[in-house]
């Protein structure tokens, strides 16, 4: 057995172990911590599978932002219903075992089938690689996301917007706990913000800019900026505001609108809908998507419809 295989098997086992800890963990908070670790392990595995785009996205969204969202949700649960938050998980039911066995069987079947299949000529992936040159893009992931499967991306952005609206509908009447770090005014924390914020903005815009040719893109850039937004919220530089603002609403719908423009604009020029308009149009759409993603995720963390500047 080669060393490479040992590492792969080990990573796989770690992933399954972490997933099991998330599912059967005794305590809610423990499960959240294990979920974050699961996201990080997943990112490492994506990187090893040669998918840096997914590794970036999983590290930023799966481990970072989802973790932060679940932590703040847990903290709010502590405020609302302390008993439920501290409750030990009940014993697993027999139904869960059956579902787990069925799911494992399904995954094993798909995996074995995939291993036994011979490589088919003319499958979608190969066609994408063949036609990628015409689009002038260097990163096939960006090509698939915005050129070949642009409609899926439009729906993804709509899902994000719908999720945000759903969370607003659910939380209009409850007073949510506002997460602010104890000791946010300490010089040490202010230094952290002063160093991290410009760096995060720079890396975010860099990821957006190189996204057409190298790993990166709107989702990674947006979630990175949302991470900076969460940091600003935690340190009280930004505060959740109850009164919705036109600017915030505009940034929320910017991504979906940009993709709609990308879909409809070719018609005005006499081409079919969703025809490819060139790299500039993609950068435009991705920039607006980045802003939308960053705002949506930050507002989900804030739990209010808007933001305002706080103490500095």
């Amino acid at each position, binding site marked *: 057995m080669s060393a490479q295989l040992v590492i792969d098997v080990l990573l796989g086992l770690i992933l399954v172990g972490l997933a099991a800890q998330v599912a059967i963990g005794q305590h809610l908070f423990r499960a959240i911590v294990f979920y974050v670790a699961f996201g990080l392990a997943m990112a490492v595995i994506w990187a090893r599978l040669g998918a840096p785009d997914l590794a970036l996205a999983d590290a930023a969204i799966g481990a970072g932002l989802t973790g932060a969202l679940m932590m703040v949700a847990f903290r709010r649960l502590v405020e609302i219903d302390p008993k439920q938050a501290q409750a030990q998980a009940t014993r697993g039911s027999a139904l869960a075992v059956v579902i787990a066995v069925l799911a494992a069987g399904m995954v094993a079947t798909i995996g074995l089938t995939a291993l036994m299949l011979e490589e088919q000529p003319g499958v979608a992936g190969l066609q994408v690689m063949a036609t990628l040159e015409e689009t002038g893009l260097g990163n096939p992931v960006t090509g698939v996301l915005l050129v070949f499967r642009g409609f899926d991306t439009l729906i993804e952005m709509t899902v994000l917007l719908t999720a945000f609206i759903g969370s607003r509908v659910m939380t209009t009447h409850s007073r949510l706990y506002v997460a602010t*770090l*104890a*000791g946010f005014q*300490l010089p*040490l*924390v202010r*230094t*952290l913000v002063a*160093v*991290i914020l410009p760096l995060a903005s720079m890396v975010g815009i860099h990821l957006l800019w190189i996204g057409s040719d190298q790993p990166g893109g709107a989702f990674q850039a947006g979630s990175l900026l949302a991470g900076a937004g969460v940091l600003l919220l935690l340190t009280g530089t930004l505060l959740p505001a109850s009164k919705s603002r036109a600017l915030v609403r505009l940034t929320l719908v910017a991504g979906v609108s940009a993709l709609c423009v990308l879909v409809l604009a070719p018609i005005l020029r006499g081409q079919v809908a969703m025809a490819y308009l060139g790299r500039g149009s993609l950068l435009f759409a991705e920039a607006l998507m980045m802003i939308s993603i960053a705002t949506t995720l930050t507002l989900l963390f804030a739990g209010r419809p808007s933001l305002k500047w706080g103490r500095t």
Partner: protein
Amino acid sequence: MIDMLALVFLISGCFFIFAGTMGMLRLPDVYCRLHALTKADNLGLLLICVALSLLGGRVRVALLLLLIWLLALLASTVSAHLIARHSRARQVSEGDNE
């Protein structure tokens, strides 16, 4: 030669991270654990970054790794400080209640 040097750095880096993890698991209270984690792990990370820069063989890679180490250093410093501060504040308030 460079490979051997990188290997030495890599193994010593792993040793320090292992020691930090052992400290995290074995030491009795929050402060000792933070001490073990932040000191040993950051040194371990530095050694691993040095090893990777040697293997990378380019100044650009080395500088990026240095930047990563500095960011990890900053993040762990601040979070360790905040955890310790929170834990101390809780101890003091619990002491008042007794």
